[in-house]
């Protein structure tokens, strides 16, 4: 009854596939991050390579060891640990000591990813958890910013460090004064090109946008989250600026400085920790933008992208639940039993 000469394969339908895979998506993300890495090298020099190497190596080795210890199949071939490593490196200040980068990488891979069950099961974006652990544990090192390669207004800078645009604005207003020669120190052109103090990979809007377009083109992300994220920030900042132009930065400054582009294209679009429905992605993006601006305006930190994405990560299961599409042939949206 059977034909044993030809070794047929039986499998459930469908028998064809789009050809995409998790590792391909991850490799695409890595490729999309290359422009930002290059920009980081140009602006901050050797430190970019140093941090990226440390983070990627630590992430991959940690993933390998933990998977082996948990007796799971070694999942490093999916390249996700490499992506986490690069993303974490791009989220660190250039002068951060290497051992701190290792601590951050371990928090990302061991705590945020593998203890939750590995790829697919983590609730929070591992790279952002790593960054926030460092930010809370080593606040000084994490907010000491190197001077970028081409400073436009050298007189505003002491020898080795310089404040980020958002940091400078916030610190000055904390003591009740407008920052001196702010718009000369941080011209909008430098913000877009990336020639400003900040995390290794967050400064160059052009490079990040290029990477984002690669991701959109390869269908690795959809436009919903980034557009809503950036749009919400722009609208919120614009309204604030209109209300009190002296105390609030123009919308362009909020959008182009800080980590909005890195967050919107590479972190808020992380598949595992964000909603699966289109409407959910819209809500997620808007929520990120809103929380970011609330932190920036009223919170203690000058920047709020990391925390806003982590908070929205926590809300993702809820968003998924409430944005369930209407099933074909059913009347309304049945939310719950």
């Amino acid at each position, binding site marked *: *009854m059977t034909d044993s000469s030809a070794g047929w*394969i*039986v499998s*459930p339908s469908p028998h064809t596939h789009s050809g995409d895979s998790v590792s391909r998506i991850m490799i695409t993300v890595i490729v999309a991050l290359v422009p930002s890495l290059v920009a980081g090298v140009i602006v901050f020099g050797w430190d970019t390579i140093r941090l990226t190497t440390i983070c990627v190596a630590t992430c991959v080795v940690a993933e390998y060891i933990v998977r082996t210890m948990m007796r799971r199949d070694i999942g490093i071939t999916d390249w996700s640990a490499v992506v986490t490593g690069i993303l974490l490196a791009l989220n660190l200040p250039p002068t951060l000591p290497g051992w701190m980068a290792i601590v951050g990488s371990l928090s990302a891979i061991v705590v945020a990813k593998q203890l939750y069950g590995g790829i697919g099961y983590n609730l929070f974006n591992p790279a952002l958890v790593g960054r926030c652990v460092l930010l809370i544990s080593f606040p000084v090192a994490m907010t000491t910013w190197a001077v970028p390669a081409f400073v436009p207004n050298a007189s505003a800078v002491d020898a080795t460090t310089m404040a980020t645009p958002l940091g400078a604005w916030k610190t000055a207003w904390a003591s009740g004064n407008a920052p001196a020669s702010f718009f000369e120190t941080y011209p909008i052109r430098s913000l877009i090109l990336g020639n400003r103090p900040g995390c290794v990979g967050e400064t160059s809007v052009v490079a990040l946008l290029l990477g984002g377009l690669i991701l959109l083109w390869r269908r690795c992300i959809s436009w919903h989250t980034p557009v809503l994220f950036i749009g919400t920030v722009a609208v919120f900042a614009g309204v604030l600026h209109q209300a009190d132009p002296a105390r609030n930065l123009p919308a362009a400054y909020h959008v182009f400085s800080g980590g909005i582009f890195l967050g919107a294209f590479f972190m808020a679009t992380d598949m595992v920790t964000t909603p699966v429905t289109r409407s959910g992605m819209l809500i997620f993006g808007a929520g990120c933008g809103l929380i970011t601006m609330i932190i920036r305006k009223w919170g203690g930190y000058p920047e709020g992208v990391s925390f806003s994405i982590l908070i929205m990560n926590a809300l993702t299961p809820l968003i998924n639940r409430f944005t369930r599409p209407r099933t074909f042939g059913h009347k309304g949206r049945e939310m719950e039993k």
Partner: protein
Amino acid sequence: MELLIQTLIIGGTGLVCAAILAVAARFLSVHEDPRVEAVGNLLPGINCGTCGFAGCGEYARDIVLHGAPINLCKPGGSEIAAKIGASIGVQVPTDERQVAIVLCKGDDGAVKRGVDYNGLLDCSAAQQIGGNGKPCRYGCMGLASCARSCPVGAIEIRKGLAIVHPDLCISCAKCVSVCPRKLIRMIPESRSIHVLCSSMDRGPDVRKVCSVGCIACTLCAKAVNNQGISMKNNLAVVDYSVPLSDEGVIAKCPQHTLEKRVGGKGVCA
């Protein structure tokens, strides 16, 4: 002063809560028959659900309050039924312990695999697309759905074939309903002679795919005069309601489909 106020506020809140809890415990408490607890303590407490109740506690309540039969606990067996009987003063009906057996002997050595399977490692999922490539359409696929359903780990997958360890079996029969090919039967543990095949194919077709399958040669049924083994749909079937002790019949089978297996405690398959 400030310290004192803070201590008072927090301590006071705690006291009020404690008072509410104390009152609630008194007025909202559920009175339970002490016999329910006694019977509940006798039951194994693994909540396997074989008795037909939601768990051991539920079953204990039904025994005491609604007079449910006391011998429904399969894992506990007659031993526990006797204890329950003694505890609440009810006679115990005696039944022989039932154990599960997989009526297939076609492991990877006996059945040649001509087809690869790329899909879920679950028997019912594989059965929906016609099996996992083992050429026999009746035999065990070895994807371990029964083993996963067994609450005590009494089923082992050995070379692509499920084997029940009768000494560990707690008679819950969960595996019986899980098997999509209906290969598992519950039998009295004293029965020792089995026809380990379920294929209804004709002899030549069986021979093509399996070296230990029943080829319907009828030798075994003739040897016992159809007493205890009879032919049904190209297959020799053991009637477990009839005790079969003549072990000579085992040697009659040219395919070695017949096998002696003893199901008592402490004996391994």
